[in-house]
């Protein structure tokens, strides 16, 4: 029965995503190719002094991205530090310095890593004016970067890649805000709470007094999932019944997570004038997703110790109302996008199951990835793939009529190296610096040994890839983790963006070369297979040694 229900749930989600692919993808293409502004947009452009008809070079576009993000980091930091004197703070004190920095970096980078229990730490002003605003802005930044790269492929001999302020504004006003608004209402109908009640004293069925937190949850959860943010209103995230009460809200939240990332390839196909290219990219994403989901579900049902086998599945850390299938589908969706929300505790997964969630992030979150970041990550891998294919058969590499020369391949290669470097260096430093090592072992690691390494590796992998999920056994609210993970999140977000925009500028400046008999077709099954192979091999080669020391060793123990 569980299996039947699980398969039906997966099929339902898949059918909805297939139905959304064309309309949502085409709608996004229209948003970013339209030459007309809405009245409210014109007012906003006047307010910030932007000419919506002007275009930016990649450098100017990057400067705008960084300005928005720097302002965001300092604003969210300040809000948290002043929480005690802000209205609607529920009597909570100011957030400490390290945690404020970590949280500011986390929400501005779309990571939404939370080293705190939100329902007993953050008042409503910080939640709404700080964190929820960044949920919209950080998601819109990701979409804008992806669209800029797509313009790089689509344009000929152009010195510009669009206008960041226009892309940002349209992403928020025409896409994220309307869908989030409707989704919040659907979630309220499903039982997600939405109030400003603070804490309510109740008496439980056993007669014990309890204090239940309330709050504007549905409005936050809608954008948390839609923008692949993942930061919960409650500590238990989407395992909490106030955030995700029923199996159907669970499926709805999964659809919200995947809708934009899986539809963006259609937008890409539309904008480059060849829908088959978008179909090839989405085929790669869907194939990798299916394999990952299958592996995780098998690991959670068939592996583990004697207790797991006697119970029929690894149910520790999972909600009865979602079961194995509802948990593995959510976990796969969350770690293959940059969401990081959880409806089950990844730290309680079987060792190999936990490894799958980690491997999903290590892939660079490209299948389908975060809103925008998934598409640009996959397009970078496509550039690497045509280069490798060119080397194999002696063809000059080109993708969508753009020559992949030395500059392009250098930019793409460095992009690929950045995230693993941050994740592995952060993990290594946590153990290599004597003072830090002592603190990590004494304070942070709950399960020493192989699993302890996995906990730290997971944290830095999550931060560097801007995912935000965690192995909850790690106590990360310490000066070292708050600082190191905060820096990892900033570098993991903005260093790759530098190279994506530089690549967009480089491609946009080129003319298109006509396809010849020597051109590798990039819309066929052969390229789909090649791109999947390159993605997995690049990740496996990079991370295999550390996976062997952590989850693999634990799983085979």
């Amino acid at each position, binding site marked *: 029965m569980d299996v039947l229900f699980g398969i039906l749930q997966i099929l339902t989600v898949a059918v909805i995503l297939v139905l959304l692919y064309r309309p949502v993808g085409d709608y996004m293409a229209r948003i970013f190719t339209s030459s007309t502004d809405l009245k409210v947009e014109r007012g906003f452009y006047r307010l910030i002094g932007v000419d919506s008809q002007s275009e930016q070079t990649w450098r100017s576009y990057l400067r705008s991205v960084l300005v928005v993000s720097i302002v965001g980091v300092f604003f969210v930091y300040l809000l948290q530090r002043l929480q005690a004197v802000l209205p609607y703070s529920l009597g909570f004190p100011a957030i400490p310095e390290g945690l404020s920095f970590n949280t500011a970096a986390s929400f501005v980078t779309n990571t939404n890593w939370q080293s705190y*229990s939100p329902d007993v730490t953050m008042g409503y002003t910080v939640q709404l004016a700080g964190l929820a605003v960044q949920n919209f802005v950080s998601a819109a930044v990701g979409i804008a970067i992806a669209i800029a790269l797509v313009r790089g492929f689509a344009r000929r001999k152009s010195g510009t890649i669009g206008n960041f302020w226009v892309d940002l504004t349209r992403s928020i006003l025409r896409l994220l805000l309307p869908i989030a608004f409707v989704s919040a209402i659907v979630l309220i109908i499903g039982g997600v709470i939405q109030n400003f009640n603070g804490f309510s004293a109740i008496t439980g069925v056993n007669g014990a007094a309890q204090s239940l937190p309330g709050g504007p949850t549905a409005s936050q959860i809608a954008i948390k999932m839609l923008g692949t943010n993942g930061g919960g209103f409650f500590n238990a995230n989407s395992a909490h019944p106030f955030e995700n009460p029923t199996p159907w809200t669970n499926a709805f939240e999964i659809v919200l997570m995947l809708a934009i990332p899986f539809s963006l390839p259609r937008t890409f196909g539309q904008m480059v004038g060849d829908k088959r290219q978008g179909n090839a990219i989405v085929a790669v994403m869907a194939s990798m997703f299916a394999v990952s989901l299958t592996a995780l579900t098998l690991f959670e049902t068939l592996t583990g110790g004697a207790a797991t086998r006697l119970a029929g599945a690894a149910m520790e850390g999972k909600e009865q109302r979602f079961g194995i299938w509802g948990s593995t589908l959510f976990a796969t969706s969350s770690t293959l996008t940059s969401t990081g929300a959880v409806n089950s505790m990844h730290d309680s997964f079987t060792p190999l199951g936990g490894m799958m969630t980690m491997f999903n992030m290590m892939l660079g979150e490209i299948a389908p990835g975060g809103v925008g970041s998934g598409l640009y990550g996959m397009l970078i891998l496509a550039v690497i793939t045509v280069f490798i294919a060119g080397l194999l058969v002696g063809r000059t590499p080109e993708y969508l009529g753009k020559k992949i020369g030395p500059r392009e391949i250098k930019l793409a290669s460095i992009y690929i190296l950045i995230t693993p470097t941050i994740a592995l260096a952060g993990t290594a430093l946590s153990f290599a610096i004597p003072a830090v090592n002592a603190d990590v072992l004494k304070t942070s690691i709950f399960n020493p040994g192989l699993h302890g390494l996995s906990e730290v590796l997971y944290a830095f992998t999550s931060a560097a890839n801007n995912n935000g999920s965690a192995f909850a056994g790690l106590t990360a609210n310490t000066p070292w983790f708050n600082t190191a993970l905060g820096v990892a999140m900033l570098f993991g977000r903005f260093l790759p963006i*530098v190279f994506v925009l530089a690549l967009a500028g480089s491609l946009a400046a080129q003319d298109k070369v006509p396809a010849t008999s020597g051109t590798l077709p990039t819309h066929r099954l052969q390229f789909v297979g090649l791109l999947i192979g390159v993605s997995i091999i690049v990740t496996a080669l990079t991370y295999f040694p550390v996976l062997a020391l952590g989850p693999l060793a634990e799983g085979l123990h």
Partner: protein
Amino acid sequence: MDGGTPPEGIYSIAVPQWCRASPVGARERNSNGVPVLDIVYVLVAVAAFAVIGFVAWGVEKL
């Protein structure tokens, strides 16, 4: 909002009660007991964005 406040038990575990009087709360301390100041994290953020800016400048040389 009806003015409901967090339960004292949960709240007092994380932060000492006397912190409530201060708009910025208790001074965080690292493992050696040295207080960490706001300026430290402001400088960390500035340094991180400076590195990103430096890399962006260097990309032109590729």
